[in-house]
Structure formats: C-alpha cells, structure tokens
C-alpha cells in the first residue's frame, strides 16, 4: 500500500473520498471518535485502500460503534464487549489476505478485554488495533475506565483512586511490534500513524486519546480536548516513505543502539519489513522507537509525570505473525474448496485398515 497524492477528486482506484464513508454517525456531536473515523476515511482514500478486502472489527461501546461510520463497502463485525481480539484472530486465520482494522475503547480493551488484548499481541495477529481512549465508559454514561488517571474526578462518580493502566506499556510488554499514541485532536499525526500501521505486518496498536465530550471533557481532565491541545507533546513528525525513496546513506545516519540524543529536526528512519520507511522528524524529547528499553523508560516517565507524549513509541522488526507460525497453505483457508478440504476415500480406508 503506497501513499499516493490524489489528483483531482478520485484516488488510484477511481473512487472519491465519499466512497469511503459509512453511515451517518450517531455519536454525540464533537465526539473525538468521529474525528478518528474521518482520519480513517481520509487515509483509506489517500492510500487507495481496497475496501472489499478490509474487515472492520470492534467490541462494544461508543468507539466500537464507529466501524459503521467509515468504509461502507467493507465487511464489519461489531462483536461483544472486550472480545474483538479473538474475533480478529479467527477472521485473519480464516483469510490472511484481509486487511483487519479493529476499533475498541479503553473500557473494551483495558477492562473486560485486557486478557484478549494481551494474548492477541503475543500471537502477533496481523491487524491495526485502534483504541479510542477517553478514560470513561461513554456508552454506559460515564463511569471511570481503567485508563483514567489517578486523582481524576468525574461529576457523578467522584474521584478515581486507582492508578491508570497505560495501554501502550501493556502493548509493548505484551509483545506488540508497533505501538503508538496519538490524540484525536491531532488529525495529521493520526493519519500518518494509520498509514504506517496499515503498512506494518503484525499487530499495530494505536492508543488515541479521544475526548468524550459528554462525560469527560472538563478541561482539568487529562482526557479532554482542552487539556490535550494544551499539553500534547509530539515526539516527532511522522511520514511514511515508500520503498526505494530513501537513500541508503540516510538510513544509517542514526545508530539506534547508541541511543544518543539527536537534535530537533533530525530524523530517524524506521525501516519496515517491505522496505518502506517511517521517517520520524524530531520535534519533542529524544526517543528512538526501535529500542524497547527506551520505550519502556519513556512510558515509565510518562506515567510518573502524567505527560501526554504522542508519536510512534515502539517499533520492532516484525516477528512471525500468527499465520506464519501455523504453517498453513497460502490460499486463504476460507477459500479452500471440496478436494482440499476432504481427503480422498482411500485415505480413510487406509486408516481404517490400520485400526483393524
């Protein structure tokens, strides 16, 4: 999937941006989730994504409703609360040629779904896993979720006294090979990360802080728009560069192992499995996403100081995906026909013979 600037009103597939829309959203006007849906639409249009080959998966929650609002020509499965990872696992097993985009919420992923989330990453199920993280349960009217920061207050439910679960930290520890954090108010970054995630082979987790305007948008909540706008610290500017567009020389300009600091404006080039590069142009604190130790240390600091850092936090040369480890045939299992599915009569007879 190469990035391509669209000429005029259609993309490489001859489709308009309109063709990538879904139904009209029924979320609250201003909900952060809607703006993420918009970025998905834009990116799909930009990169000329073949919708017929996409599956949209979600759990339950306002966030999980959003697959109805983008890519109307893609199959979708709005499953049950917290269990989308297993659905994604099964669906990609059945047909590994599908591009899987999952949308979940902080409640869906961080509370009821935490176990499945972790095990999906351990198996490296190939998919883009988006968490629309607002620190509350939107659809059930504003209870705290597990990503709410300690000390945060909500009108009805009072003060949260438990520490927040950091879903990026959980993702890294869980074995995800692409982990990013973003802010639904930072459209450009969301798009850049989505493009990179779509190009990744393996589980790509994007934890997007996405304000709930109805239940958690008080400016002193660190999941609010105002807070995000005022406090977001992007690590870098992100751009996906197609294969062959980066001179070899640049690639080695920074040695990730030395983890030395680099100047603002300097670049890190993250090479992906297919030769594509993610170019990270430094705008915030030093960070090389290719180092797990650095990523963990960064998030530890983020947690201690309640910083709102965004960008590509961790990237790992992809280990084998679940599909790779299972040694199945190249044709998607869902497409196998008669003879391949049923061994011949002779095979059964031989077996029976051996049991006599």
């Amino acid at each position, binding site marked *: 999937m190469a990035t391509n600037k669209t000429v005029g009103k259609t993309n490489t597939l001859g489709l308009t941006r309109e063709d990538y829309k879904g139904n009209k959203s029924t979320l609250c006007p201003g909900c952060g989730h809607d703006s993420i849906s918009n970025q998905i639409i834009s990116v799909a249009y930009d990169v000329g994504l073949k919708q017929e080959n996409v599956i949209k998966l979600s759990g339950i929650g306002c966030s999980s409703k959003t697959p109805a609002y983008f890519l109307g020509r*893609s199959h979708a499965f709005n499953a049950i609360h917290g269990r989308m990872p297993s659905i994604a696992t099964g669906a990609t097993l059945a047909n590994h040629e*599908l591009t899987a985009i999952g949308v979940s919420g902080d409640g869906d992923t961080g509370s009821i779904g935490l176990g499945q989330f972790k095990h999906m990453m351990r198996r490296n199920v190939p998919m883009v896993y988006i968490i629309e993280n607002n620190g509350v349960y939107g659809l059930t009217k504003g209870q705290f979720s597990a990503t709410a920061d300690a000390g945060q207050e909500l009108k009805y439910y009072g003060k949260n006294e438990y520490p927040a679960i950091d879903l990026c930290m959980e993702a890294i520890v869980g074995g995800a090979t692409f982990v990013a954090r973003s802010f639904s108010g930072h459209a450009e970054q969301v798009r850049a990360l989505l493009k990179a995630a779509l190009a990744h082979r393996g589980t790509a987790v994007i934890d997007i802080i996405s304000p709930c305007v109805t239940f958690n948008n008080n400016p002193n909540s660190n999941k609010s728009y105002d807070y995000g706008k005022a406090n977001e610290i992007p690590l870098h500017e992100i751009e996906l560069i197609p294969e062959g567009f980066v001179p070899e020389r640049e690639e080695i300009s920074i040695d990730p192992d030395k983890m030395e600091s680099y100047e603002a404006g300097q670049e890190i080039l993250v090479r992906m499995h297919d030769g594509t590069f993610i170019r990270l142009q430094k705008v915030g604190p030093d960070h090389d996403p290719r180092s797990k130790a650095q990523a963990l240390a960064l998030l530890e600091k983020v947690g201690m100081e309640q910083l709102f850092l965004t960008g590509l936090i961790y990237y790992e040369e992809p280990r084998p995906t679940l599909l790779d480890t299972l040694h199945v045939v190249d044709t998607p299992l869902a497409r196998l026909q*008669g003879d391949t599915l049923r061994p011949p009569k002779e095979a059964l007879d031989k077996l029976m013979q051996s049991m006599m």
Partner: protein
Amino acid sequence: MGVIDLPAESQMQQTGERIVNDFSFMVATKNGSGSQTSNSTIVRALFKMGIPVNGKNLFPSNIKGLPTWYTIRVSKDGYTARRSRVEIVVTFNEMTAAEDIVNLPPGGVCILPQEWNWTKSRSDIIYYEVPVKDTVRQFDIPTERREQVSNMVYVGVVAKLYDIPLETIHQALSDQFNGKPKPVQMNYQVVEAAYHWAADNLQKLDRFHIEPMDKTKGKIIITGNEAAALGALFGGVTVTAWYPITPSTSLVDAMLDYKHLRRDPVTGKDTVAIVQAEDEIAAIGMIVGAGWAGARAMTATSGPGISLMSEFAGLAYFAEIPIVVWDVTRMGPSTGLPTRTSQGDILFTYFLGHGDTHHICLIPGSVEECFEFGWRAFDLAEQFQTPVFVLSDLDLGMNNWMAEPFQYPTEPINRGKVLDKEALERFIAEKGEWYRYRDYDQDGISYRTLPGTDHPRAAYFTRGTGHNDQAIYSERSTDWVQNMERLRRKFENARKVVPQPVVDYDAGKQIGLISFGSNDPAVQEVRDRLAAEGIETNYLRLRALPLTPNVHDFVLNHERIYVIENNFDGQMAQVLRMEIPGDTRHIRSLALGDGLPMTPRWIYDNIKRYEGK
C-alpha cells in the same frame, strides 16, 4: 456401587460351569504408572482374537499416584455396556486392594503381586500371586520406565491364564508403539517372562476362559474423540481453536495426530489451523471470527468451557455464524468430577445464551456417529448459519470402542447459502438487490457473503444488536419481531433436517424406551434381557435437538415411556415434557448421575420396579 449384575449374569457365577468369553476384567493400578499401555495391549489382543471387547478407564483427576481402574468386558454376544460387576480383578494397587477384592463375586479371581504377602481372607475366590519385582528385575530397564514395564507382568499372566497367544500380544504391543522395535521389545520381554513364569508356577483354578472367535473381523477399535477428530478432518475443518480441558483434550490431540491427512503434499503446508487459545472465551471467539470469515471452524470443550462460551454462543446464534462446538461432557455442576462421565449439559447447552436463544445439538451414540457428526456438524452449521453443538461424553470420547470402519462421507460438503462474487452478481441481477437477512426462500435461511468478496455490494454489517433484514441497526419492534420470527422458522426447519432418531418400533408394544448417546449399549442389552423375560419394548434413540416430530408420535403412542439418561435431573425428560404437545404424564425419568457409564443392571432394576414385575 452396591448394584448387582443382571440376573442371568449372576446366576452364571453360582454354577461351576466353564464361562467362555462372557465376563469382565478389572485392572486396579495407580494413575501415571503407565498401566494404560498394558490395558490397551490386552484389549487389542482380545480384539485380534475376534472377541467383542470393550475397555473403560476410570481414572482420577490427578497426574500420578491416585487409584485408577480399567475394566475390560469380553462378551461373545457383542455387548459393550459397563457391567456393574467384574469377575477378574488385577489388583496392582495396594491402596484399593481390599475394596477391590471384597467386591468380587464368589468364584471370582484376583491376580496380585506376590511381594505384598496379602492375607487371602476370602475362600470363595481364587488368588493368583505373581512375583512382579522379581520378574522385572531380570531385565535392564531404565529407572523411569520401570514402573510402566512392571505392569506388563500382569499382561503376561493374564495371557497365560486365559489363553491369549503370545504372538497376539506381540502384535498388539507392536500396534501400541506404532511398530517401534525398541519399546516393543522392552515390554514384550517382560510379558514373555511373566507368561512363562505363570506357565511354570500357576495352576489354573478358575472357570473363565477366552476362546478365539470371528466377531471382530473388519472392525476397528477407536475412541470417540479420535473418531470425532477424524470426522472433522474429513469434514473439511479449517480452523480449530481450543483450550485444554478434560475430557475434550484428546479430541484436539487426535486432530494434531492426524493433521497430516490435511497436509498439502507439494508445499508440506496444512489446510487446517489449530490454535491453543488463552481460554474458552477466546477459543469460541476465534472460531466465531473464523466462521464469519468463511472457515469451517470448531472447538472442543467440556462443562466449564461451555459455561464460559455462553455469551459468544448467543452472539453466534443471533448474528447467524456457523461454528461447531463439541462438548465432551464430564460431571458437573462446576468443576465437579473432571474425569467422570455425564450427560448433564443438555438443558444448559440447548438454551445457551441469555434471551430467547436455542441451539441445534447433535448427540452421537457410538464412535461411528462421532465420526459422522464430526463432518456432518459443519454441513448443518453452514446450512443453517448457526452454531451446532455436539454433545458427546467422557465415556464415549475417551474409552476404546469396537466399531464398524467409518463410512466415507455420503454427502458432498455443503457450504450453505454463500454468495461469491459471481453468484452475488447473478442474485442482484435477478432480484435487484441482496440483503443479508432477507428471507428470500421462506425457509428462514438467508444468503451470506464472505469478507473479501470482490464486489462493492458484498459487504454487510454483522452485529449482536437488533437489526433489520438489511443488516442495519434497528430498535424497531417490528424489525426485531420479524427477525426473531425468521430465526424461529429456521429452527423449525432445522428440526426436520437434523439427524433423525433411530427408532425400533412395533405397534402393540406398550413400553417405549427413550435414550441417547453412550447409553445405547446398556439400553440395547437391557432390551434383550427384558425381551427374554417376555417384556417387549420399543426404543427410540435421540440423536439431536430440537426434537424431530416423530419423537412426539413415539411418546404419544406408548402407554409408558422410560427416558434413560446419565444425569441427575433427568434433563432430557424435561425437554420432552416441555416440547411435546400432548399429555406426557406417562413419561418416567430414569436418571442416574453417578459419574459412571450407565449399566444395564440399573436400568433393568428400575424398569422392573415400575413395571411391577
């Protein structure tokens, strides 16, 4: 287990005549001691001699050290049900020896290690003492194998005492170890030594005899779980996700063992993916995802797993996704007795999921049917776009059964109403539209497309929330009711298509027996016995839920109906009362849930009690 055997059997014990090919062995050992190999060797050897045989393992929920019992029934008449009494006991476990011996009938036999110096307090039975340690000591056997190999001693002694040829034992051992010479030799040498020791030292005193027959020719021996695994593999399963749980684990193990049947010879890659999930919720979630995306997907589990699968079962039912779930039932409630058999998940599984949910359930009654339902379940699931549960049990699944060789699937794979790109184009050309949940054929089954279908109108939105027939979210009462009515149509339709009961019916008989699953051998045997006493019975063996219409007729056409089942609450009797539109006061529930396979004796006693004869 205070039950005694069928009258004719126990009468046999009283006389002094030769008893040939019609008695039971029990081998009492310790779990994890490797006695399974010895027991299977005996079973296979008897089988090779042409004698109908059945082996049942009664084992603890433990890895090593607790008592375990294996019973082997030889029956010239081909009966395979559990008998409540055994005539010959190999007591190789001192912990249980006293109790094992006390339960022997007069004239019974006890084979035990010489080195125990056991006080032989019963004069009405025959003891054979054998020098286990000394026999094994003669050979150079690695320490970690010694315990297992010790159990070969009784194989040799039994072979000698009951005339099982050594060559047959050797063949059986060879089968056991897939012909690998080293373990065969290591074990065989001990058998041989014990055999010769017995020949030299034991005088045959009992009346039990094995004689070759020709009743197993062309038959196979296999467990229900292996049969199910083969059925699934021949049924075109492409995705299996599971979580280990007794007694279903060996079903998936067998799939791994036989996976090579589904290996592409050119690339060496598999056409089936088997994934160990992190729990049962994930296991069923994976197959729901896979079934949705077009795989033939299944899982195998037992009680606690079924409980955990409730929410997804309801989703799959309502979103109409084909999946197959094997419940190899064990004893509940709760963790219960993980290594004891039961048919206690009927009501719960039938209605699995909150709201108005109900499922197609298949109930195999033999290993042949485990194989058949192994493939057929996928056809039904895809035909009806719904979960299909297969209710097997530990007895059927984990024990070795004699069977006819499995019949190659008689019907081609049925993928149901799936529209691929071309079919979708034709469909739209013809009808001007295609809506996922519209009942075009008035059979309740609508057409689906698979993700990845290369057509701009192929996509639809799958959800567990209310939807109209265009698969669009809807909270309208009329949409909801319309959809539920279609689902009911589909279910009523399935009622006619699920495996029909096997009915043995003669007008004029007043007593009807109804049973299912692994109870079949016990029911068959009891019918013969009752018939011999002049009590004629009809018999209907259920093979599926929902009940097919002819079940109603059967029930209503008898004066007295006995529903025989292996659970505590008489769950199938409850289903019958619930579903049969008529006076069902004549249904009597004969339900026993004690963790053991059903015996003819218990059924006999109960029927006699009620029949007042």
